[in-house]
């Protein structure tokens, strides 16, 4: 005989405001099989949980129904309480009286009647529940970090430092990401390369880190603890086991005018190249789109120059399969293409540049050797205008968000310019200054007060080029309430931060959500900012939202801590909500096998005692099953059931409402 306990929560006022909780508890007490019924203001609180534990023990309950909030919120809480009192946690169910009832209704009588129905449904269900036990699956204690920028490097180093193996995958030929391109960093003006490159080397030489540069994630199978990831190692056309990185090859390459991605198209590179002198690994790849040998079939200058015979034009992409237990996505950001802004020259003026181009101009390793020389004629600009919020906070171009880093790097740019061109003018147009960070406001003040960067609050409406080459910047000074016109030699646009191209495809591979701007979605904006909806997949850096270096590094370490926490146990406990095939009635039509999005349904051969094949049926691999129920729906003869949500349970829930 079922002995069911019912516990109705007021959720403070949340449920009690619209639902007569005492009446629900009284009605529940009369339901067949219910031997205990109570209501309380906060069932999730310690005294509330104690009521449940006590009733389970004293009334020898065989099942419990908690009428409260969504099971997404507190099912683990109440199931833990049940387990503490000795009841199998899967014999406790929740009736959602808040999201499904009180929050969405106003009529108290009708809402109370509905709440009683919701409780009755769950009482009928719980009578048919059976004890379930967590499924234990082994964890592969290797992490995959996707993206070799500062966030990816930090996450990889922290995980490797914790004693676990890491595979660091980077799309480009070198790790380092955007940080390697920066001249100096706010708010301390320390040299970006000086703090980054030692970490790059450390990542490359760490015994626990396997570096896979010039590689991309191709396919993902499996689940937390047991992902099988296929990685495409793009053809490098250079055998790195032979290459010493001497540079003879790129010195001889005749394709010399390819815009350098690293130098933000301000410099040129060859077809066989390393992106920058401090690249890690410090070995070249051949860009197959621009290589004369690979496109036209004749050249081979690099192969002739290479004394080690490392150049191999027949190199092919290679697919590598790896097994990992957790994944950190650290794919970073790009700058928005400001050519959509016709009023700022639609990207056609050589001297209207973006933040990265300014970084390269200011960098000692940049195309100008660190001298600020404008791209069009190499002259030192005497007046430079910086425009913040270029694309950011502009719903006209579909970007409502603040890009967060621009206020700070623009102040830095102004400073760097003033440090190099003492008599020059740096004028910043801004909407607001957002300098909320340690030492950030002080940094802005320093730019204004110590370095004389001029700040004008207002928008620039138009930039056009006069015949003498001057860029005429027309804007408003909203504090002074007047129009402003500046004759500038160069304009730097603080373009909006956007997610890296291809990010959506990667998210789909891993089952990670993303917002309308393409930034990856965290599992909870406050309480789970590093996790994603996909178990075992974590986020680090600007792929989630615009972030500066300290925030990216902090999140990367947080993601690493999550990975190490996951790897701290040899086995993973998984919810036993999995599908089960009735092998007596299965006819092996394989519809479920083909429908399963997780590849969790497999062919299973039933053999007699002598080993002769009797027949083949479908069987669910508990370790892979995510309990989505697709196979249950697809099975024409209805011979698959989902544990915890069996046909019988669902049927009885519906039947009791008749």
């Amino acid at each position, binding site marked *: 005989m079922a002995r069911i306990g019912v516990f109705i929560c007021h959720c403070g006022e949340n449920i009690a405001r619209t639902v007569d909780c005492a009446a629900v508890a009284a009605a529940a007490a009369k339901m067949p099989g219910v031997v205990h019924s109570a209501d309380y203001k906060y069932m999730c609180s310690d005294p509330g949980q104690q009521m449940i534990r006590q009733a389970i023990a004293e009334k020898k309950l065989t099942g419990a129904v908690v009428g409260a909030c969504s099971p997404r919120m507190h099912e683990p809480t109440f199931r833990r309480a049940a387990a503490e009192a000795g009841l199998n946690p899967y014999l406790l169910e929740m009736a959602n009286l808040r999201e499904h009832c009180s929050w969405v209704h106003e009529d108290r009588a009708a809402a109370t009647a509905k709440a009683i129905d919701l409780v009755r449904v769950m009482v009928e269900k719980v009578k048919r529940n059976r004890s379930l036990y967590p499924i234990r699956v082994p964890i592969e204690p290797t992490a995959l970090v996707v993206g070799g920028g500062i966030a990816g490097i930090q996450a990889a180093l922290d995980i490797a430092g914790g004693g676990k193996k890491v595979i660091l995958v980077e799309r480009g030929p070198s790790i380092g990401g955007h940080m390697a391109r920066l001249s100096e960093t706010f708010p301390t003006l320390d040299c970006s390369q000086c703090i980054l490159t030692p970490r790059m080397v450390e990542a490359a030489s760490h015994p626990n880190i396997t570096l896979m540069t010039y590689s991309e994630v191709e396919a993902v199978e499996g689940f937390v603890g047991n992902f099988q990831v296929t990685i495409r190692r793009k053809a490098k056309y250079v055998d790195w086991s032979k290459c010493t990185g001497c540079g003879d090859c790129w010195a001889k390459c005749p394709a010399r005018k390819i815009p350098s991605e690293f130098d933000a198209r301000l410099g040129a590179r060859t077809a066989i190249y390393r992106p920058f002198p401090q690249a890690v690994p410090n070995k070249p790849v051949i860009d197959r789109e621009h290589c004369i040998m690979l496109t036209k079939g004749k050249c081979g200058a690099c192969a002739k120059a290479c004394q080690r015979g490392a150049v191999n034009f027949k190199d092919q992409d290679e697919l590598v399969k790896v097994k990992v237990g957790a994944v950190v996505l650290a794919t970073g950001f790009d700058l928005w293409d400001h050519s959509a802004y016709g009023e700022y020259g639609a990207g056609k003026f050589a001297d209207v540049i973006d933040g990265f181009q300014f970084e390269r101009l200011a960098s000692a390793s940049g195309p100008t050797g660190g001298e600020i020389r404008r791209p069009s004629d190499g002259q030192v600009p005497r007046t430079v205008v910086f425009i913040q919020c270029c694309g950011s906070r502009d719903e006209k171009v579909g970007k409502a968000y603040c890009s967060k880093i621009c206020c700070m790097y623009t102040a830095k740019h102004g400073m760097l310019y003033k440090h190099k061109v003492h008599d020059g003018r740096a004028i910043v147009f801004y909407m607001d200054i957002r300098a909320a960070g340690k030492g950030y406001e002080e940094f802005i003040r320093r730019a204004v007060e110590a370095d004389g960067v001029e700040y004008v609050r207002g928008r620039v409406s138009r930039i056009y080029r006069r015949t003498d080459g001057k860029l005429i910047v027309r804007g408003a000074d909203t504090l002074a309430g007047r129009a402003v016109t500046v004759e500038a030699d160069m304009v730097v646009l603080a373009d909006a931060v956007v997610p890296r191209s291809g990010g959506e495809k990667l998210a789909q591979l891993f089952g990670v959500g993303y917002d309308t701007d393409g930034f990856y979605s965290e599992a909870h904006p406050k309480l789970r900012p590093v996790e994603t909806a996909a178990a075992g997949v974590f986020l680090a850096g600007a792929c989630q939202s615009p972030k500066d270096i300290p925030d990216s590094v902090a999140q990367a370490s947080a993601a690493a801590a999550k990975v190490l926490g996951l790897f701290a146990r040899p086995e993973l406990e998984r919810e036993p909500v999995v599908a089960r095939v009735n092998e007596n009635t299965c*006819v*092996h*039509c*394989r519809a479920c096998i*083909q429908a399963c999005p997780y590849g969790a349904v497999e062919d299973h051969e039933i053999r007699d005692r002598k080993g002769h094949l009797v027949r083949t049926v479908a069987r669910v691999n508990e370790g892979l099953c995510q309990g989505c129920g697709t196979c249950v729906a697809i099975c024409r003869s*209805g011979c698959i059931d989902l544990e915890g949500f069996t046909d*019988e349970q669902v*049927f009885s829930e519906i039947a009791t409402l008749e």
Partner: protein
Amino acid sequence: MSTSEAIRADAARLLAEGRAKLVIGYRARGPHRAPAFVSDPAGVDVLIYDNLCKQNLAVYLRKPEVRSRGPVAVVAPPAVMRSLVVLAAESQLTEATVLAVGPDAYHGVLDLAGAAALLKEKYADLAPSPELLEALAKLDAMSPQERARFWTDQFAKCTRCYACRAACPLCYCARCIVEKNVPQWISTAAAQHGNFAWQIIRAFHQAGRCTLCGACEAACPQGIPLMLLNLALSEEVAKQFGEKPGYDPAAKPVIGSWKPDDDQGFVR
């Protein structure tokens, strides 16, 4: 040589050579056609083929009493060959020997791959009969209320004899959903509720699989126009997914498989 004579000759040869232990074909029974099971080369004379041969003989191939006889050959017009291809796609058979007959010609003895190739080459555009298309157009032109009334009247005739299911080679479940009784989703009583549920579920379970052979409708003693349901769903599948079942033995099920470029227009 007529088609019937050619079938007899091939059947006798297959049986004599041992390539088939049993040939399933058609024989005359008065003005009707009935299935013939021939295991002796001397008995092939009963086999005939003409346009009265409507039954889908593929239905026998999964029966244990037939399978236990050893290799079986079956007289197969295009609709039957398509059924065999679907059965192969659903891992219900791995091989088949067919005596392939078309409305225009006899194509001799083929294996499954040969049958699939023949279907693609010669019978890729099998059109339903004009009468059936006309009836469906009439049904489509009705208001939803009129259509509901039409089907209520039709389904009211159903006695739940399940002849439609027995005649269909694709209704091969060991336990049909209608016989699942824990819980019993579909009432087994021959009354409106259960009849509706049964008929609609039968049709949906055929969606993307039905080869429009017509065996179910021919078997129905109550004259329920099942082909209208089958055709409506087939056309919907063709329109939505561009798929026609029964041509590719390696095809994935239309319902239960997906492609990234599937039409999402229904999501609002």
